[in-house]
């Protein structure tokens, strides 16, 4: 167990490239999850029973199976059906879909959380559907959602190493490859942990800041 700083400097550029890919994957996955989640949440509120049931089933199905299995499916099984996704695309879709089902529940809880009286009051004031959503419901629904969404963002960030299973050269995969080449695991794996910790801590403080600001407006 002898820590070598010269080895650290040598592998740092490679690992930073991995950090870049990891951050890209997280941000891309987060945007997808936010959009997919919203779509699923709205579909689940659909007055049409069939749509509502199907959506519920899809959500439960995806939540009930491991992300790793979903990634393997997207990457190795879909080509048999003629759909060949690039590793990063498959990874983003996997992350977006998986976490989309979680954010959908957050949206649902946030919207359900607005008291019925608010809907009734909006109706009584003769507001249009659009006005009701943008001026009454969403401003009250969004601030309580932020902490939960932020937690999923951080959780997703920490799950990006799974993408290494489908050959995405993110941080974990880069670290494993430099470790494999140099027969040294101590420095690469320690640095991976440190990078994840630093980025998590920074994101957490940024997100807490956002929460506080939104809280003040709300």
């Amino acid at each position, binding site marked *: 167990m002898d820590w070598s700083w010269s080895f650290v400097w040598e592998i740092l550029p490679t690992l930073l490239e991995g950090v870049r890919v990891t951050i890209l994957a997280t941000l891309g996955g987060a945007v997808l999850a936010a959009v997919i989640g919203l779509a699923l949440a709205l579909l689940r509120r659909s007055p049409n029973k069939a749509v509502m049931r199907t959506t519920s089933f899809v959500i439960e199905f995806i939540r009930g199976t491991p992300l790793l299995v979903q990634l393997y499916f997207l990457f*190795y099984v879909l*080509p048999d059906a003629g759909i*060949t996704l690039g*590793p990063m695309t498959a990874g983003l879709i996997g992350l977006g879909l998986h976490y989309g089902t979680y954010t959908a529940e957050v949206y649902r809880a946030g919207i359900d959380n607005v008291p019925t009286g608010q809907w009734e009051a909006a109706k009584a004031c003769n507001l249009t559907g659009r006005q009701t959503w943008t001026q009454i419901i969403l401003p009250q629904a969004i601030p309580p959602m932020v902490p939960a969404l932020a937690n999923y963002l951080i959780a997703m960030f920490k799950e990006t190493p799974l993408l290494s*299973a489908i*050959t995405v*050269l993110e941080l974990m*995969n880069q670290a*494993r*490859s430099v*470790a*494999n*080449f140099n*027969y*040294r*695991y101590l420095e690469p794996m320690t640095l991976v942990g440190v990078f994840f910790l630093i980025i998590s801590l920074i994101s957490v403080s940024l997100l807490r800041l956002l929460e506080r600001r939104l809280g003040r407006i709300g």
Partner: protein
Amino acid sequence: MNFMTTGMRVGSGKSLRITLGALAALALSSSFMSAPAVADGKLEELKKQGFARVAIANEPPYTEVKPDGTVSGAAPDVAREVFKRLGVGDIVASISEYGAMIPGLQAGRFDAVTAGLFMKPERCKAVAYSEPILCDAEALLVKKGNPMGFASYKDIADNPKARIGAPGGGTEEKLALQAGVPRDRVIVVPDGQSGVKMLQDGRIDAYSLPVLSINDLVKKANDPDLAVIAPVKGAPVYCDGAAFRKQDADLRDAYDKVLAEMKASGDFAKIIEPYGFSAAAAMSTTRDKLCGG
């Protein structure tokens, strides 16, 4: 040890002291567990234990785990026989990535690596190799008709669209990178079956493994749209050996002695030739030559 003294000095708060104490205890106990029994020598230790732990891949014909869980393949078969003659009854194998074998050996997870881990100067610096056992050239698996016209790793480097798959931390990955294929076009493939699948799906344009491994894969995949290019132009013929920790040189020396006897008596050829390996190739070269480069 260092850990503990620091812990005691710094630990003014009670909880801090307890945590550091626990850490120190952990460090101490783990250093006890991994301490090699220097007094007896490694071979005596293995004899007493009754088995040797070896690292293998799952890459027939070098190493293979049969569906019923038994371990075969040329490398473990040789190791099993040598260990038996040394008085160590059996081998217990665990599957590992190529790149993780040497660190695992150094960390004491295995007693030897018997996996077709080719001898190369930088590996020889890290571990104690036996004399050569299995020799093979490198091959490329491509789509039928070799649409991109590959003959060497250099050809892959020169085609900006070509992607090559190879096992992580294996010889082929290194050869491709050394030939100038950029990192993002060398795809690390988890196992042979995924390599074939990725080639069939068009995710990679060539998959590289030693000749005998590729031949075995192609036979099992049974896909007429695949073709083998062997040997890869400009790539050397490599030989593996059983790899031991540097401090277990006594075990290595004993292993070499039995191996030399088996090579002389023809028992060695009897084990490896059914798998397609050439005993003459292994006997025509030496560790010193392969490690010297």
